[in-house]
């Protein structure tokens, strides 16, 4: 059964879209990531124009992150204070990212910058996560005890001034690195057209030493706010939000996210990190392969200015 998408202006199979939503929703619920870094390329592959894909995915991410945030809120796992401080940096970063996006597009090198950023970022973070979680699993398999965190052993950037206590996350750190992380996530998110959850979760775990589940819950809350802002921004500035596409994706996505969230909670934190690491690494490799392998056609056509 096909359905015509009014803004994307093409017919697609509704079941393909639903399945896509459920699959990506499952992953986003499980790892607390928005799933944009998976969904956007898949929609473009289906023929949806990139600008419409990026904008419409934000509606899907808003829905599934809201659903996920509610679940985690009820379990008292969201660190609202940490989320708000991150958001302060995040919104500034988003603005900087949007400006860079426009500049790079004028230079005609946006695709390359996006691809290289994906490769470097996903490759690094994926490898780090896989290595760390394997080490943790190996330690456990050998029967060694996990290293006890010593309160005085904070890295230098957490000992900067303007310290603040985040009770839920059980950390007492400077707000400077927190705002910086928020800024970086917002900047990269706007530039790469993603929510940034898959960057934020490891950043919270490894840099700020926030417990895994609190990281996931807080990242979901941040995704919710940034994606709701993104819907409005895209709708007003570009008119590229396809509500029909978004609705089908979010119905599939929220159902998938519920099962994903349960699967995630049933799983050990180290295994969860290993899986997310492998997933991030796989997407990074995929982008790298696309850039390195000789393309079928050495020419590509982009639309500069639509007829409307």
């Amino acid at each position: 059964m096909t359905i015509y998408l009014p803004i994307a202006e093409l017919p697609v199979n509704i079941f393909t879209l639903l399945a896509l939503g459920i699959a990506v929703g499952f992953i986003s619920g499980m790892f607390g990531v928005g799933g944009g870094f998976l969904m956007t390329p898949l929609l473009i592959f289906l023929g949806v124009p990139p600008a419409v894909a990026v904008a419409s995915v934000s509606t899907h991410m808003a829905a599934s992150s809201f659903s996920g945030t509610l679940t985690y809120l009820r379990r008292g796992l969201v660190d609202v204070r940490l989320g708000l401080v991150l958001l302060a940096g995040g919104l500034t970063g988003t603005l900087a990212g949007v400006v860079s996006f426009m500049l790079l597009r004028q230079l005609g090198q946006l695709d390359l910058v996006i691809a290289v950023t994906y490769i470097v970022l996903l490759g690094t973070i994926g490898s780090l996560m896989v290595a760390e979680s394997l080490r943790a699993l190996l330690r456990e398999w050998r029967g060694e005890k996990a290293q006890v965190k010593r309160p005085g052993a904070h890295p230098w950037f957490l000992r900067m001034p303007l310290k603040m206590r985040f009770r839920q996350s059980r950390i007492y750190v400077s707000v400077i690195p927190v705002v910086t992380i928020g800024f970086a996530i917002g900047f990269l998110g706007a530039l790469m057209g993603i929510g940034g959850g898959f960057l934020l979760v490891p950043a919270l775990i490894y840099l700020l030493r926030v417990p895994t589940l609190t990281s996931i819950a807080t990242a979901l809350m941040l995704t919710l706010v940034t994606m709701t802002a993104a819907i409005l921004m895209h709708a007003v500035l570009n008119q590229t939000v396809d509500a029909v596409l978004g609705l089908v994706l979010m119905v599939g996505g929220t159902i998938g996210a519920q099962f994903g969230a349960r699967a995630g909670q049933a799983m050990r934190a180290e295994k969860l990190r290993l899986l997310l690491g492998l997933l991030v690494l796989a997407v990074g490799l995929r982008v790298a392969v696309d850039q390195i392998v000789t393309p079928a056609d050495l020419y590509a056509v982009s639309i500069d200015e639509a007829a409307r």
Partner: protein
Amino acid sequence: MRGMAASLLALLLLLAGTPARAELVLSLSKARVTITSNFTGDTLVLFGVIDPGVVAPSASPDVVVTVRGPRESFTTWRKERRFGLWVNVDGRSFLAAPSYLAVLANRPPADMADAETLRWEQAGLDNNRLLQRIGSDYADVVPQDPFRQAFLRVKQAQGLYFERPAGVEFIAPNVFRATIPIPGTAPIGAYEVVVKTFNGGALAGQGTLPLEVAKVDFEQTVAITAQDYPWLYGLATALMALTVGFIANIAFRRD
């Protein structure tokens, strides 16, 4: 089929009432393609009658039907390997190129007339003018230009440009029929159907019909709201997203 019969009838009525000197009479099965939520593409039928007076009894006329969609500007990029990565190194702008281009003919257009005539009349996919910006100049280039060929290749792969050398069929010595496929991905806007007839290697007659591809009903409402009331549309979409998220959360609540 009924639409086809009706349009043929309309054409005959038109013929009956037409004063003597019409070289070419055309009728399209519908002038407006409407897009609803189950739209996956459409097929139009064009009927044409060539006035027997202009055709020599021995000669067989040739017909080229060209359908051009609304104009858009494109950039064709050429990739090259730099530091192991494939990078866009060079780009050409194609200004106001048709977003949809269909060429239908009763035989390969190249056989109908000499190259210069065909180029002048823009008969055949390769003879359609595609304006490029080269430096500060605007010009069309030779058909062998790699950017132009790449542009045609990409658009053909998308199913938006095509040439069918057997797309026009003569159902009587001077009556022809052409089937125009409109794909589901066809851009919205004003189209133009241009019919040119050739006889003995020269242009014998031509005619133009307008065609419109438009969204209607729900599709139109959504598109118009998105364009004219972006704040309302954005807020409504955001609210819809939060509602769906909330409902899902309640529906699946276990604790």
